[in-house]
């Protein structure tokens, strides 16, 4: 019996994705052309957007990627094919924007069409599938991330996408963007750092005193169930009152609206996963190891820092990963109460029905969350490699 009949040689997921890609290329609009940022757009097919050799070249690449996805089994080769497809589609979209923009016109808006998005998604899925099969180690995953970041940076530095609508929005907001991005990162990292400083001792206390554990975890659980906007609202009242009563607080930037309630709310959201993971991590530590450590004359502090916390660290870092990714997303909402961050663009864009402005806030947020997840997952892997 042959282990691989011709039909079974075909990768089903790859075939499906490949067909979807080819269909998207043939039928769906490749880019959308708008006279200005709020005009309704008109679709342009690949042939219209990239007439001549470029369009044919892209089509050829996509067909090759689809064939590779369907027929090639080696994950490494599939990954290379998918990455080639990803880069080619991205470059083609940038090139189409260049070609469709009349010289010197700053009003037209050209954005990727449904077809381009589907192509990017298909290539990304094939790449993800290949990566999952390759099982790269922590260092390789971080290296992949760094390479991707470098490639993206190079593309922006070279102006590859300058004529795309989202980069048009960036150009308009270029002066404020670094400030909002920094504010976003500061709010997310700061709230997680503060929560770690508070959550770790609270988690240790919960582990040591089972009587404390129930009430503390239930309270934090309750906080976690309050919707973010409601929590921001709840915090406005006491902080506003504080600012009125204590002028110094207002001078320090503590106010009913602004970054202060945002930072406090984010801190509160981060507490539960950190406290819970610290408690669970410590509970997983072998009681025999702790008893032996004490029995050999380690002090309580030495038992905590050399044995318990070291063994609980992978679980604690997992908690930090959860809250960091969670808070990077939640900071977006903080813009509603004047907290700043990339959410500012999202809400401005919603207000102006300018979807490109929304994306200017949303895409960097997603990239930030994804990158921190990759880095912290790698960290958990490295630390957790110590046998438990």
């Amino acid at each position, binding site marked *: 019996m042959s282990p691989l009949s011709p039909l079974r040689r075909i990768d089903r997921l790859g075939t499906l994705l490949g067909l979807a890609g080819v269909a998207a290329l043939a039928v769906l609009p490749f880019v959308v052309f708008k006279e200005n940022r709020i005009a309704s757009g008109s679709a342009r097919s690949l042939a219209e957007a990239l007439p001549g050799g470029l369009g044919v070249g892209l089509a050829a690449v996509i067909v090759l990627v689809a064939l590779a996805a369907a027929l090639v089994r080696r994950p490494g080769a599939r990954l290379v094919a998918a990455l080639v497809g990803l880069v080619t589609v991205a470059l083609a979209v940038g090139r189409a924007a260049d070609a469709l923009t009349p010289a010197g016109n700053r009003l037209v808006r050209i954005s990727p069409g449904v077809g381009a998005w589907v192509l990017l998604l298909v290539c990304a899925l094939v790449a993800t599938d290949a990566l999952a099969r390759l099982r790269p180690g922590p260092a390789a995953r971080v290296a992949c991330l760094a390479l991707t970041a470098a490639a993206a940076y190079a593309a922006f530095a070279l102006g590859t996408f300058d004529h795309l609508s989202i980069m048009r929005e960036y150009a308009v907001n270029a002066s404020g963007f670094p400030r909002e991005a920094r504010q976003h990162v500061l709010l997310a990292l700061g709230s997680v750092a503060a929560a770690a400083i508070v959550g770790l001792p609270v988690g240790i206390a919960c582990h040591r005193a089972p009587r404390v554990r129930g009430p503390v975890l239930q309270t934090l659980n309750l906080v976690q169930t309050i919707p973010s906007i409601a929590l921001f609202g709840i915090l406005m009242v006491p902080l506003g009152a504080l600012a009125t009563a204590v002028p110094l607080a207002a001078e320090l930037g503590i106010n009913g609206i602004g970054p202060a309630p945002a930072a406090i709310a984010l801190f509160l959201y981060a507490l539960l996963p950190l406290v819970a993971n610290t408690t669970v991590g410590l509970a997983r530590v072998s009681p025999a190891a702790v008893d032996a450590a004490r029995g*050999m004359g380690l002090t309580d502090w030495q038992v905590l820092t050399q044995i318990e916390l070291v063994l609980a660290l992978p679980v604690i870092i997992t908690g930090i990963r959860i809250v960091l990714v969670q808070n990077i997303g939640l900071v977006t909402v903080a813009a509603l109460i004047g907290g700043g961050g990339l959410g500012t663009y999202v809400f401005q864009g919603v207000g102006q029905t300018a979807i490109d402005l929304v994306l200017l806030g949303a895409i960097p947020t997603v990239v930030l969350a994804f990158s921190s997840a990759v880095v912290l997952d790698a960290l958990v892997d490295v630390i957790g490699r110590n046998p438990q």
Partner: protein
Amino acid sequence: MIEIDSLTKQYGAATVVDAVSMSIASGSITVVVGTSGSGKSTLLRMINRLVEPTSGRVVIDGRDTATAPGHQLRRHIGYAIQGHGLFPHRTVAENIATVPRLLGWEAARVRARVEELLRIFQLEPGEYAAKFPHQLSGGQQQRVGVARALAAEPGVLLMDEPFGALDPIIRGQAQDDLRDIQRRFGTTVVLVTHDMDEAFRLGDRVAVMTRGRLLQYDRPAMLLKHPADPFVSRLTGTSDRSLKLLSLTTAAQAAEPGAADGPVVAAEASLRDVLSELVWSGAADAKVRRADGTLAGRVTLAGILALGRAD
């Protein structure tokens, strides 16, 4: 010498250890035996003050243990427990080096001591020093646990059910090894177990505890011959007590001058094994031969039978 003086531990209204007094000779193995909840582990843990006594005191070699901070005291007392309690994130060598490092030994001295102990416990340093505990078998883990407890050359070694997690064959080997090592270093060993056979096999003296009280503290043979309490005879078992008694004496110890017609037995064989041999061969006596081949005399069936009952 460990002097335990009316040591008591109460948790609220419950008295877990009730005014236990005993004196443990240096260089001996004392086994504390009892059912679960008898207070034997608590008694052991009060010796190194993992549990602080409610009242009473422990004096080791003339020094009251209450005078130094608990962690300082424990660095000079070996401690080995059931399930070994090795640190999973540290290598075998690092585990063994724990107490010497706490005591601030120089690195070279620590390394030499770790290698010495690994050799004594039949673990080739080149092969095992850098391994992590999960890479070892259960018996090897247990050996590393005992080696770690002995690392800083403590005069006293406390062991809480150290062989409880081992299968019977490895357990027997571990018990023999402990005997050898205890003789080699002259360590005073206090071992807690619920296994009466282990108590008889290892103990120079055996302490029987129930419900926090010390019922009897004596040589194993005395526990069999003169149990102080019905609970002691229940624990030691009455149906085969004569055979247990015989297993505590070697042929060399029971040998008397004279010739014998029966089979040859080894001097270190227990009388229980000699009796079995006599029953099997149908002989009435046996020659006792030392390891160097010389004869130590004879043992007779009647002589063995006389030793298998209370005087």
